[in-house]
């Protein structure tokens, strides 16, 4: 009964937000999250399916796990200077639960198969409301991208201390972009809404090596996923003016529904990690990861019918590859109770000139705390992470939207695993 509810919960409300660099999400298991996701080398629970699937060769029998991270965001913007350098706008606060479902099965002693469901990329931002005027409404009012990855994996223990894994990824993606538009000839404000969904494919590969007792090395790679949104819809709406000539002009120039297409190449990812078990109770890990965000250089949207005479809209993005460094620590206070902490530094993927409010990201520091508890065949992991983003003073925005972005997030993770 409880399980059914959890399933429903996870499947129905998987909305996500941007918390890794760019719009990646790196919180995919409460055990890892407790150690600021420094987990590529250890990868010794179900979330190894995400962090380093080679690690699942260590999981005996059949295991299943569910998890979610509740992400509570707080972003604001002060500016833009061109309007008033002291004008303050908080973003609408969001709560997002990217969730995971993991399962592994040890088929023969050295071969384990696994199945993972997670949201590796996502963003959601909303600015302005009835009570909160939003000066950037021609840039964005609401943006969201949700991805859901299905990722079957095969892991094989090549040597006693060396495992490898390979997997296929199917990524389903939904995107929504809303903003206001301006028809200057008639000085009218309208609204544009782009919606699309698609499916893209990729693969992943990983390796885990234990050269000395208690010393683990991990390497993981995830390929680009090309998302071709071909059957999107773009709708442009304007309030009726009461002047039939103008209303007809607007209707002729701005279709209320036309087909739109766009392509986004999601970044590839590489991560390496090294962990060491100093005492039977204490393990420390350090990781380095890199998202290849330079794959996202521009957003080109093609319209089937011309919109204000144009059939294409091009937005320069010019993201750059973004690294992060993570360190984590796990200490067993009791045989069945682990305490964890960690720190991560994540580089921003968006250059200053291209930062805009739909993705107000920046360099981040994550401080994490967590605990794991084992009882009977259940494993329960809880984590709390606070993400503090460096204040970002933009002075060279290509949109002349200069000002200060602040951002933080509280992330509460819970994972429940069961070994049959």
């Amino acid at each position, binding site marked *: 009964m409880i399980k059914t509810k959890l399933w429903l919960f996870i499947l129905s409300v998987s909305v996500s937000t941007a918390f890794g660099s760019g719009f990646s999400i790196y919180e995919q298991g409460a055990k890892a999250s407790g150690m600021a996701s420094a987990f590529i080398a250890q990868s010794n629970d179900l979330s190894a399916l995400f962090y380093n699937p080679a690690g699942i060769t260590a999981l005996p029998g059949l295991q299943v796990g569910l998890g979610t991270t509740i992400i*509570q965001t707080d972003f604001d913007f002060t500016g*833009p200077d061109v309007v008033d350098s*002291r004008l303050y706008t*908080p973003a609408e606060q969001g709560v997002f639960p990217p969730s995971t479902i993991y399962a592994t099965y040890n088929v023969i002693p050295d071969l384990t198969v696994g199945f993972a469901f997670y949201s590796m990329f996502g963003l959601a931002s909303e600015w302005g409301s009835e009570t909160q005027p939003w*000066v*950037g409404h021609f*840039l964005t009012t609401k943006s969201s991208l949700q991805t859901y990855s299905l990722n079957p994996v095969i892991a094989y223990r090549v040597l006693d201390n060396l495992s490898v894994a390979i997997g296929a990824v199917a990524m389903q993606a939904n995107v929504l972009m809303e903003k206001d538009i301006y028809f200057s*000839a*008639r000085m009218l404000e309208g609204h544009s809404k782009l919606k699309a969904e698609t499916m893209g494919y990729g693969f992943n590969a990983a390796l885990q090596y234990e050269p000395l007792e208690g010393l683990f090395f991990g390497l993981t790679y995830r390929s680009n996923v090309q998302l071709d949104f071909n059957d999107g819809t773009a709708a442009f709406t304007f309030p009726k*003016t009461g002047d039939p000539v103008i209303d007809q002009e607007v209707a002729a120039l701005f279709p209320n529904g036309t087909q739109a297409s766009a392509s986004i190449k999601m970044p590839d990812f590489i991560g390496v990690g090294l962990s060491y078990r100093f005492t039977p109770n204490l393990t420390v890990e350090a990781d380095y990861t890199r998202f290849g965000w330079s794959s996202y250089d521009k957003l080109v949207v093609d319209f089937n019918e011309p919109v204000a005479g144009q059939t294409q809209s091009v937005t320069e993005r010019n993201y750059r590859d973004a690294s992060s460094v993570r360190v984590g620590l796990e200490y067993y206070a009791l045989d069945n109770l682990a305490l964890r902490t960690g720190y991560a530094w994540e580089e921003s993927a968006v250059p200053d000139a291209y930062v805009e409010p739909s993705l107000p990201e920046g360099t981040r520091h994550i401080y994490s705390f967590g605990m794991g508890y084992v009882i009977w065949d259940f494993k329960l992991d809880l984590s709390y992470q606070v993400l503090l983003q460096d204040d970002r003073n933009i002075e060279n925005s290509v949109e002349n939207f200069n000002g200060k972005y602040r951002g933080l997030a509280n992330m509460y993770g819970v994972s429940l695993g069961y070994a049959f």
Partner: protein
Amino acid sequence: MKWYKTVFAAAAVFILTAGCKFDAPVSNPNTVTPNEKLLFSRFVALGDNIVAGYQNAALTDSLQRYSFVNLMARQAEAENFVQPLLGYPGLGSESLAGFGVLELKYLDDPKTPDTIIPDPVIMPVPFSDYPDFDPFDPYLTEEIKLHPLPYNNLGIPGILLEDVLVALDKLRSRSHSQMIDVVLRNPAAGDLTPFEQARAFVPSLIVCWAGMYDVLGYALYKVPGTKLTEPTPPAEFAEHFSSLMDSLQSIRGAGLIVGNVPDILDMPYFNTVGPFVIDTVTNTPYLDESGNKVPLIGVNPETDIVLFPAKNATRQGYGIPIGILNGNGEALDEDFILTPDEQDLIRQAIEGYNTAIDTITRNKEIALVDMYSFFKQIKDGYAYAGFTFTAEPITGGFYSLDGVHPSVLGNALIANEWLSKINKTLRTGNFFVSIPLVNVVQLMSDLQPQNR
């Protein structure tokens, strides 16, 4: 299974209490201080067309309200900034023919449904549609007409720089602009020039932006006063500008800020009509049997600029060879054309004026707003919080329908340039002035039909 309830309850409490949050900043949005209000308490503006709030080829109340100087006054919460508001449809370049302000009838003429490029229909509003409007007594109200002080906005469309010091009325002026009488109200006002009226005001702040008309009056096809046979020579301009600055500086206790001259050739008026015959069905260049574009008669397509009003002449067949469309075989009137020599004269004049303005204001330590550079930014595309203003006619957002004078939003952007300069250079006591800029995004919303 009690244990997990306890854990979840603990987690829930944790979520609600332990999460980090931002506080809203303590500093409030920019507001106007009493000292800043004092600076704008007796604010006067001198200059020509743009200062006056001339837009869509006319001066009329609904657009004068958005003159950049009135917007500046509004931002500084100056309560008594009085302008010579005129009724609708106002006075402008077509007034002698019985018309007022321009109106965009159609973005794409419905009579020519097959155009590939839209052909907008812009028409002046006839006085005959507004029988209450008297072009000889054009003021919006009696109160404005009989305002007992000089107007705070002494910007006069169609005047030359020298007129700021010498004009008394249409006849006793260099430019002979009909608007002089409307703004100065001499002899009733005591036969005072624009400068003298400003001085009589004991101003606290003077904005002066004149000189554009010294070259525009030469370049335009038809002007409301006397068409100039050449731009004011730069040497002469420098003399007038220097003595104007001396005069303005002689007004004690007044802040002074001036502007230079934009490159008028970037304006849509000079860039909308091409040098070729346009097919009336498609509104694209007409192609002859060998697929070549056909130059208008009298126009060198390589080098000449064809002025905006030439459109009306080509519609009647001028400039179009016989046998093509409705061509009458007659050359386009040379007044519609700027030859390379004429363009050089215009560029040299603007460069000369701006050199003089630059030198003189630097020597006399007068704050200068670089309107030349700002108008260049518009030409290159000026991004403002997600909307990009350009020099495109009608759709660019910056220029009004006449293709020369800024639109309402253009005026707001100009007001911000002036306010920014004031904020950077002027002080009240020991404090820099910090007048809030016009929130153009908010202005766009305020101008929506449902909010107007």
